[in-house]
């Protein structure tokens, strides 16, 4: 599974993307975050305030409870500020 990070999430983790293979017990986007925060202090800091994190599964906005089973691309980022 390819995991992408943008804006300050990317900066705190220090990676724009990584390939991860979470255990089979990780079934939702929220459970993936639970697993990611243990990977490094940067991950923990990026996800410290989960309410500010937005999720896209296969490039579509998603919620923490949405399934990531079989998903190839998931992204985490702050609320968007375009235009």
């Amino acid at each position, binding site marked *: 599974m390819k995991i992408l990070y943008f*804006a300050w999430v990317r900066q705190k983790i220090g990676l724009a993307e990584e390939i991860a293979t979470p255990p089979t017990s990780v079934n939702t986007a929220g459970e993936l975050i639970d697993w990611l925060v243990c990977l490094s202090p940067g991950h923990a800091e990026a996800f410290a305030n989960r309410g500010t994190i937005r999720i896209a599964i296969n490039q579509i906005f998603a919620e923490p409870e949405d399934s990531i089973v079989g998903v190839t691309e998931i992204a985490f980022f702050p609320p968007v500020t375009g235009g």
Partner: protein
Amino acid sequence: MAIRLQEGPFDLGQEISIMTAARKDVGAVASFIGIAREDNPDEGAEPVIAMTLEHYPGMTERQLMAIETEARGRWPLIDCLIVHRFGRFEPGDPIVLVVTLSSHRQAAFDSCNFLMDYLKTQAPFWKREETVSGERWVNARLSDNDAAERWEGQH
């Protein structure tokens, strides 16, 4: 109907000329240009020296196309165009362009306004500002969510 993501500038006059060329059914062309500003509404007095727009390649195009499809379903549009730039900008630099063509003016106005409101909340762009004190990521604005939500009940 077109969306474009690009680093370079755009030319509104030229875009409209291309979209309206040889047509006799266009009565109304509404357009909007969003420009980088020096004044900083969130942080008080410190002026913005420059800003950098980061985006999510792939998802951005997908979202812009989805927003455009939504607008075409709501209004009788002859054509529409969204051009969004990314990269580093200084105050005065144009960043985003939306153009809508319709037979009637209210459809052109409303769809152009809708596209900008949805862009602000639905397209994965993030803005980083440079001031004399350093750089910071711009926070999302509640007013942008309110602006997008006012279209929800109107489908």
